[in-house]
């Protein structure tokens, strides 16, 4: 069998095999059960909590959680603006890179605070090593924030009736130290031995074999690349991200990075089941997500392996697939697979240029971000999916004529309103943003790298990526302009915090309600039937909201070349 296809199976199965034990471990961490890493982390965390003035046993309700979460995020934003706008004059800048302009710093800091990592700069020339380190810090803590928010939802369904949902700082700290740090460390070490640099020296200058001079950017990349995947952040150390031969030097490093970005999103699903002692429910969620993921990924693998029909018509040997924007050591198949993995999960790191993928592959990448809940980002993926579960519970309830219930709690008007606002905000931000930009050619069309239908896709992709907090791009877009920096910056903030606030609020409200024991008429949410209903709700919302714009972009482009 084709070794490129076998590689994909290996990546998926390896992730699944390790996700279940990791899910168990994560559930123990949040449930304050004993784990084998206690001997290091118990004393370490005790010291950290003392230094921070935090009592980790202090219980918070859902509002207190959100206040703490938003405040600490604000601190990171302010600090980040200061660092990026002055990095040119700060230490650790061997290449003499300049400070960022205010609008670029605004976009960059927000983008890393919200776990998106949309990058309107290029790492080699746009950041000092100190700037890179600050962003690496944000990659850890933004992932930790998402996980802490997800745990509030976990807690809300574990106890029968409660307002006490644990301590934000404790969840956040434990996510960072006990989950993100050890995994990143292991991945970073493996990457270093694959050839990813970890040096504080600046650019090197060499003479090539043909006698020309070649400048080579280096830097402390391995640590950065590890957390960018473990935390599903996706921001590259170098401009071309995971396509760069230093960030992703071998096929093994490609498998490792693929594993690294999917492992926590997978594991969080199983952790949910272990935590609330409903393992079947986890498998229902995992089943729906996997069906959705495969429905997008398989066509991309096939499409990219088949190659560009316009180049095939020129009469050359296209058996390697669509190689524009791709790397030989990775190959078309693994690249097609990655293009969907990175977009369903909100990583947004790329190992090829999505701008140059086939039209329908581009559409699937867009759809993956438009749906944004097949696996999803660290922590927030499960929050996004939770919204669809609430909608599915409501619709199922209406169909059988009963008040909808979810895990023994009545879902009523207030929760439904929140769920609807969150579900509709995502298409609203994407479509309005794209439409506004398309209506202003001097800000929109002028920045495009491709004409026609594909040009519209470039603008659509940028807003979809921002609103999904994904961070990948159709990178031909000249996006370092005041308009793109500010407009996507605003979208990023709304699209990050509202989908955290919404599910946490719903979970908090449901947790306070009286528990109704299961009866004969109770809707079972851990069955395949309920999974199908949830998937249907997801597909209908995505299709209704996005089909028209997809028809104008990738679908129209498809018909021009096939």
């Amino acid at each position, binding site marked *: 069998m084709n*070794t490129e296809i076998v590689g994909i199976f290996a990546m998926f199965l390896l992730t699944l095999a390790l996700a279940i034990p990791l899910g168990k471990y994560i559930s123990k961490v949040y449930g304050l059960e004993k784990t084998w890493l206690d001997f290091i982390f118990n004393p370490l965390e005790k010291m950290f909590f003392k*230094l921070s003035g935090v009592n980790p046993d202090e219980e918070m309700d859902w509002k207190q959680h959100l206040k703490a979460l938003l*405040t600490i995020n604000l601190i990171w934003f302010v600090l980040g603006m200061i660092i990026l706008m002055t990095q040119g004059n700060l230490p650790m800048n061997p290449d003499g890179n300049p400070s960022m302009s205010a609008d670029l710093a605004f976009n960059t800091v927000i983008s890393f605070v919200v776990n998106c990592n949309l990058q309107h700069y290029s790492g080699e020339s746009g950041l000092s090593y100190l700037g890179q380190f600050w962003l690496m810090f944000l990659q850890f803590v933004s992932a930790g924030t998402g996980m802490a928010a997800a745990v509030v939802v976990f807690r809300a369904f574990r106890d029968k009736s409660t307002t006490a949902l644990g301590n934000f700082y404790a969840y956040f700290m434990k996510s960072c130290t006990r989950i993100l740090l050890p995994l990143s460390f292991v991945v970073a070490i493996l990457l270093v031995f694959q050839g990813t640099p970890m040096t504080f020296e600046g650019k090197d200058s060499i003479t090539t074999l043909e006698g020309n001079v070649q400048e080579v950017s280096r830097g402390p990349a391995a640590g950065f690349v590890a957390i960018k995947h473990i935390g599903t952040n996706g921001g590259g150390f170098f401009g*071309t991200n995971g396509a*760069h031969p230093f960030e992703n030097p071998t*096929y093994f490093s490609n498998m490792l990075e693929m594993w690294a970005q999917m492992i926590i999103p997978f594991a969080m699903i199983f952790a949910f089941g272990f935590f609330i002692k409903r393992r079947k429910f986890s498998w229902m969620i995992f089943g729906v997500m996997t069906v959705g993921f495969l429905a997008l990924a398989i066509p991309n693998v096939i499409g990219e392996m088949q190659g560009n029909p316009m180049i095939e018509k020129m009469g050359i040997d296209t058996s390697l697939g669509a190689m524009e924007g791709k790397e030989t050591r990775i190959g078309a198949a693994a690249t097609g697979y990655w293009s969907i993995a990175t977009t369903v999960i909100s990583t947004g790191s790329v190992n090829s240029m999505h701008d140059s993928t086939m*039209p329908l592959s581009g559409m699937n990448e867009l759809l993956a971000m438009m749906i944004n809940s097949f696996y999803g980002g660290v922590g927030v993926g499960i929050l996004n999916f939770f919204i669809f579960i609430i909608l599915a519970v409501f619709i199922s309830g209406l169909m059988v004529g009963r008040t909808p219930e979810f895990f023994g709690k009545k879902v009523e008007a207030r929760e439904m309103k929140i769920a609807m606002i969150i579900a509709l905000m995502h298409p609203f931000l994407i479509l309005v943003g794209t439409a506004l930009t398309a209506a202003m050619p001097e800000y929109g069309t002028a920045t495009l790298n491709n004409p026609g239908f594909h040009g519209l896709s470039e603008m659509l992709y940028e807003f979809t990526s921002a609103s999904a907090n994904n961070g990948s791009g159709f*990178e031909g877009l000249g996006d370092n302009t005041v308009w793109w920096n500010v407009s996507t910056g605003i979208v990023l903030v709304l699209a990050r915090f509202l989908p955290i606030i919404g599910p946490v609020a719903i979970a908090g409200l449901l947790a306070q309600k009286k528990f109704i024991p299961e009866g004969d008429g109770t809707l079972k949410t851990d069955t395949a039937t309920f999974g199908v209903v949830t998937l249907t709700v997801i597909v209908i919302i995505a299709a209704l909201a996005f089909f028209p714009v997809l028809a104008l972009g990738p679908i129209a482009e498809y018909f021009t070349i096939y």
Partner: protein
Amino acid sequence: MKENLIKGIRMTVVLLVLFVVIYPLSVWAIAQLAPNKGKGEMVAYKQSQGYSNIGQTFTKDIYFWGRPSAIDYNAAGSGASNKGASNEEYLAVVQGRIDTFLLKNPTVKKSEVPVDLVTASGSGLDPNISVSSAKVQVDRIQKARNIDSEKLITLIDANTEHPLLGAFGPTKINVLKLNIALDQLK
């Protein structure tokens, strides 16, 4: 708010020490055991040396050529063409590359030109080409160097990098290493 602000700032400082000082320094310390102490693997040739993972420009007839690069193999600013599949300007560029290749390699049939030799890579620094991309250049190099083509084929076979564990991923060739070996061939 004020209480959260103080706790938040203190926790940020603690985590900064952990993630920005301790974490990268420990990775850096272990990297000292890695090839070239974590500064990027090097490979030596003539009086100089290059990075084995970073592709170089090859335009002379006596060397195997690598993939087209949107940034001319400038490793201080990686980049790609980002051209869409339907872009006519881009398709004309690809057509031009095919024509140029056929002109410089007159014994090669059009249907034998591998797609990776006429499309730009994602990083602009792709160090590899496919095996067929190396073989298709044999006639030209044989002529330019006046060398036995059997020897070139053997050289390509010796430099072919097989899939990981024989099972995962594509087969490929590192252009720089192949050309260094080519220079040493006598």
